[in-house]
């Protein structure tokens, strides 16, 4: 084990998402792990962090012009970035790991800019080689693998969900929460409103799910069979961009939507246009259900059914429920 210090962003600090557990697992392979939060972690969160080997939680106390930054403002990328940069200076950390959401990318870029640090976005792996941090990326819709080394002292890396299997530490520790002051630069940008959509579906978040079932134009607007199969598998539901633009489903998989790389991806009634493939082609196993045997998605899948999704999906769901007992 090196004496490297690795900071992992924990935002929000009211829950530990699977993507954060994956980050903590990767971080432990690189050095000593600390978490950076913008609010007080709950008791449950602390216990989970301890199980994953986090010794210290650094809780940023951001202030701007002498006034404390509180509430929703704390989640603004500029505030998160100021917290991360200050935490790096405080702990003399070498690596900062973040998940790969748009908000986290913004915070990562600002923190790296402030620190003069090298930045890697959307890494699929992070390792140490010859004293440098080396990050792997899967690019061009999953068709190429690249690796790059960070040449600066500090590396800021956003890591894609499902890049590692979350593993608790060999021995749990009891994390200590330590506050630290952060001066946030004045900004004329005002947060007028912030709404968090509460998800009552009980399904895993699309960007973090191990199994994804997505529906496209072929659903004709009926996502019932897609949801049915997803629920039989404990999967997240997504859509193609076309289907989302039709208003049939909220979130879409694609290179400008949510990028997914689950263990299993099932595309139903999705032709597999380049835009969509760019958001899912890095999936481990790809399954397609489409009535058109010429659909381009068949070129990149491992298993396919040529048929009507309204027939195939419910039958598969019933069979899986039977198997699960």
């Amino acid at each position, binding site marked *: 084990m090196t004496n490297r210090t690795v900071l992992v962003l924990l935002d929000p600090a009211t829950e530990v998402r699977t993507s954060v557990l994956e980050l903590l697992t990767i971080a432990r392979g690189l050095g000593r792990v600390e978490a950076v939060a913008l609010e007080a972690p709950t008791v449950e969160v602390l216990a989970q962090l301890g199980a994953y080997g986090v010794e210290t939680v650094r809780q940023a106390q951001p202030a701007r012009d002498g006034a404390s930054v509180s509430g929703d403002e704390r*989640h603004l990328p500029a505030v998160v970035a100021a917290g991360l940069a200050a935490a790096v200076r405080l702990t003399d950390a070498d690596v900062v790991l973040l998940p790969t*959401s*748009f*908000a986290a*990318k913004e915070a990562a*870029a600002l923190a790296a*800019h*402030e620190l*003069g*640090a*090298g*930045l890697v*976005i959307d890494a699929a792996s992070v390792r140490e080689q010859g004293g440098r941090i080396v990050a792997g990326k*899967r*690019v*061009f*819709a*999953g*068709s*190429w*693998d*690249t*690796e790059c*080394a960070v*040449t*600066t002292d500090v590396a800021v890396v956003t890591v894609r969900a499902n890049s590692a299997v979350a593993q608790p530490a060999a021995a749990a520790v009891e994390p200590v929460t330590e506050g630290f002051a952060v001066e946030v630069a004045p*900004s*004329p*940008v*005002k*947060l*007028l409103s*912030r*709404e*968090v*959509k509460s998800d009552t579906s009980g399904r895993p978040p699309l*960007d973090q799910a191990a199994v994804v079932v997505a529906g496209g134009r072929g659903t004709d607007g009926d996502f019932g069979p897609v949801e049915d199969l997803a629920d039989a*598998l404990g999967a997240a539901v997504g859509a193609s961009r076309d289907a989302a*633009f039709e208003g049939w489903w909220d979130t879409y998989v694609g*290179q*400008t939507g949510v990028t997914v790389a689950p263990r299993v991806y099932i595309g139903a009634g999705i032709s597999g246009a*380049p835009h969509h493939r*760019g958001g899912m082609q890095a999936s481990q*196993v790809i399954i397609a259900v489409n009535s058109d*045997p010429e659909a381009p998605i068949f070129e990149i*899948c*491992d*298993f*396919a*059914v*040529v*048929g009507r999704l309204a*027939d*195939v999906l419910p*039958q*598969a*769901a019933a*069979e*899986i429920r039977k198997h*699960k007992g």
Partner: protein
Amino acid sequence: MRIVVTAKYVPDINTERGFEDRRVVRNAGDGTLNELDENAIEAALRLVEAERESGSIGPQEGEVVVITMAGPDGDVALRKAFQLGVDRGIRVSDDALAGSDYFGTAAVLAAAVRKLGEESPVDLVVTGMAALDGLGSVIPTLLGAELGLPTLNLAKKVELAGRVLTITRELGDVTEQLSGPLPAVLSVTDTANQPRFPGFKLIMAARSKAIEVWSPADIGIDPAVAGTAGARTETLSAAPRPERAEPEIVTDKGEGGVALADFLIRNDLV
């Protein structure tokens, strides 16, 4: 209203994309204007057009300038921007700029914006949400940081009232409304607008419209801050992924769903 749009020349996503000598292959034949930059151009044009319609500027006033950092092949991207109706196209070019990382790219683009600002004030910089080759999505953020301007990212809705810009953005399960005063940096998503189709007159005019080429010296920047020399990351390898094995394809004759479930079960994926 004077708006600068940053654009990128990228390999067409419908072509076979790849690397050569650890660099992205950029051929004139397979290269194009990053599709997401069309949304940025559309947003910029609409803002200028709205000002003209409201009478707050004259019918000949207002300007949209597109800048790109690229080799000569990048003119393809600027010609496309001309077809959409932008007024000026500038390419910042130098062999030493090749291999720039996010920070080098942002530093060069910011220097070009500052140079334009010396001619006459720039009110707004608009970018797309990402470039479809790298998909990093961080250039607008870094551009704002370099220029010291308020940055409003990933707008799906843009409103300008006087000199205050208000955007709505959706980040996963969060919806935010943010506002900031001009001058500012704005990035727009692919749902912000529907880019226009080029008109015949503009297509014809775009062929012969002059492209300005600026060197690092022209914009007062040391090329060593960008390019491979200034990069904070070094690409070690780039290799094509092995082709997927031939897929197993079942035609549904009443048992397609059972076959799908069986595939998942026998591969231990349930």
